[in-house]
């Protein structure tokens, strides 16, 4: 770096810039572009309340006479609604921003849930071994044999059957997070178990055992920090999957209700108007979803290659 002072200690920012990870990131133009798009989309959806030109949840602000307006560049489009409006006059751009917020929120929380479950079970299975290990891993195998979407649908169906019928819409988000989170823990558990079994034999573990520290503290305070590397890669790769699963469940009509829609709900509602030529109600949320998933996928792929060259 020409602008780096030769004598002083490198600052933290410079050390980050000089790290292998940062160099590999900056060398891949596609990843930089994908990360940029993903960050912009996530930031825009988090700040939806500030950025969105309209509030799609505010029923008083919606005018039914504005319904089914095409995007601004088509005949009949209005400048107030850049990407057009839906059947009840909501601005499509605003519903996409609020919808992405819902999709990303459910995606992140369900990945976090899978991570907590998977890491805990993986640590226990790897550290304890024996019967507990066999039970957890058999369970993982059975679940891994079934596709995520099917497991999520089943858990969703069971939770719906248990919840009182009047409350189904209120708990829909919670049901979604639980069903996606519970169907994705296996990958985390397997990775953590494998690295825990290696760490268990290390001298530092023996040392902390000798000074009388309990198994829980050993697992979570001493082994966990050493097995976190692959977990972050799996979490990133799973995020796009979780967002997709959420969208699919909502599209299938067992996700979030249309009053507080996610991207999947918007696409589902929009398909009813496809045949009348109002393509923008479906296509724009669909494009937003595909772009979000693609960019998160690209970043995840790069992270996997950069942190673990053997996986290629």
């Amino acid at each position, binding site marked *: 770096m020409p602008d780096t002072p030769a004598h002083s200690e490198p600052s933290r920012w410079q050390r980050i810039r000089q790290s292998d990870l940062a160099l590999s990131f900056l060398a891949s133009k596609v990843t930089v572009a994908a990360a940029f798009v993903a960050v912009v989309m996530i930031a825009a959806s988090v700040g939806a309340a500030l950025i969105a030109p309209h509030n799609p949840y505010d029923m008083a602000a919606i005018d039914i006479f504005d319904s089914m307006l095409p995007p601004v560049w088509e005949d009949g489009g209005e400048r107030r609604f850049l990407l057009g409006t839906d059947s009840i006059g909501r601005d499509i751009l605003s519903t996409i921003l609020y919808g992405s917020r819902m999709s990303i929120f459910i995606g992140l929380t369900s990945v976090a849930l899978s991570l907590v479950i998977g890491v805990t079970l993986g640590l226990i299975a790897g550290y304890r071994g024996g019967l507990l290990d066999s039970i957890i891993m058999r369970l993982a195998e*059975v679940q891994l044999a*079934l596709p995520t*979407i099917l497991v999520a649908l089943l858990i969703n*169906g069971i939770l719906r*059957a248990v919840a009182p*019928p009047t409350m189904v819409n209120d708990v829909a988000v919670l049901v979604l997070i639980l069903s996606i989170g519970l169907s994705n823990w296996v990958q985390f558990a397997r990775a953590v178990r494998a690295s825990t079994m290696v760490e268990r034999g290390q001298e530092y573990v023996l040392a902390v055992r000798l000074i009388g520290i309990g198994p829980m503290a050993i697992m979570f305070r001493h082994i966990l920090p050493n097995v976190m590397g692959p977990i972050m890669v799996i979490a990133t790769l799973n995020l796009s999957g979780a967002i997709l699963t959420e969208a699919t469940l909502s599209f299938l009509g*067992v996700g979030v209700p249309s009053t507080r829609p996610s991207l999947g709900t918007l696409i589902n509602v929009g*398909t009813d108007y496809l045949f009348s030529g109002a393509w923008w109600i*479906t296509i724009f949320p669909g494009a937003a979803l*595909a772009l979000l998933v693609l960019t998160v996928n690209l970043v995840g792929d790069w992270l996997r290659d950069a942190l673990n060259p053997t996986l290629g």
Partner: protein
Amino acid sequence: MIRYVSGRLTQSLLVMFIVAAVAFALFGFVGDPIRQMITEDASQAEIDRLREIMGLNDSVPVQFWRYISGAVQGDFGVSYHHKRPVGTLIAERLPATFELAGLSVLLSVVIGIPLGVYTGLHRHGRLARGLMAASLVGVSIPTFLLGILLIYLFSVILGWLPSFGRGETVAVLGGFWTTGFLTTSGLRSLILPSITLALFQTTMVMRLVRAEMLDVMRADYIKFARARGLGTRTVHFRHALKNTLMPVVTVIGLQLGSVIAFAIITESVFQWPGMGRLFLQSIQQVDIPVMSAYLIMIAFFFVVINLITDLAYYSIDPRLRAGALKGNAHA
């Protein structure tokens, strides 16, 4: 050999037993089956009588045994919503799902393997790179979105192909099976759903064959085949491709189950009258008997496919027979 086969069989039976237990627990304990069947003004005596008729007063093991022995004979109870036997409902919808899934797997093999070979051999070529990028986009487009795009393009704008249903079907095999392969409208109706369902599998087969080709082409025996002066064509197809096909066959076998599961989404987009749509409606309507039956059916497909794949592997790969391998055949 016998030990291996019987070990795998025991494992499969155990999985089926666990799934049946889950399905039974759903069937018996989630929601009160009586409340789903009676009217508001039923008296307590009527409810008690119904409980007795349905055997809900028996002990749990007795009920479980009755559920399993019924399920083995195709009796999964009566749907709450349709008021018809679940076995009949599924049998009516089985052909639709199987024809769709079968055609999709065929498509993904016919398209995916040649593309995989090509991208594997011309790793740095422009077209191969373009194909790889396209496959990543293909994986990122959700199945249902692809279906919607296809409907919009080919049904709404161009008006070439139907957007929903199976078209006209013909009953064959003594009315047991209805097929859409024998009529023009049936075939036309199959095109869009099968492409939708096949896309994900196609990209997966392509990536897998590519990775295997890259691996195999580095192997010593390929170098020796070249050194022996064999033609490029022979080396690529007779020596390289043949050795990549083993894992590909396994994965395609294992994917067959996922295709049936992914058909839920495709069937929903195209209003395809298959099992997946029945299952989805049963979730929306909390129709527990249908849910349980579907769960058992899908688990059964998975177990049978897994078993066949494992046994096929065992008979194809001599290394498995020689080694002291325990249980798991995925070496």
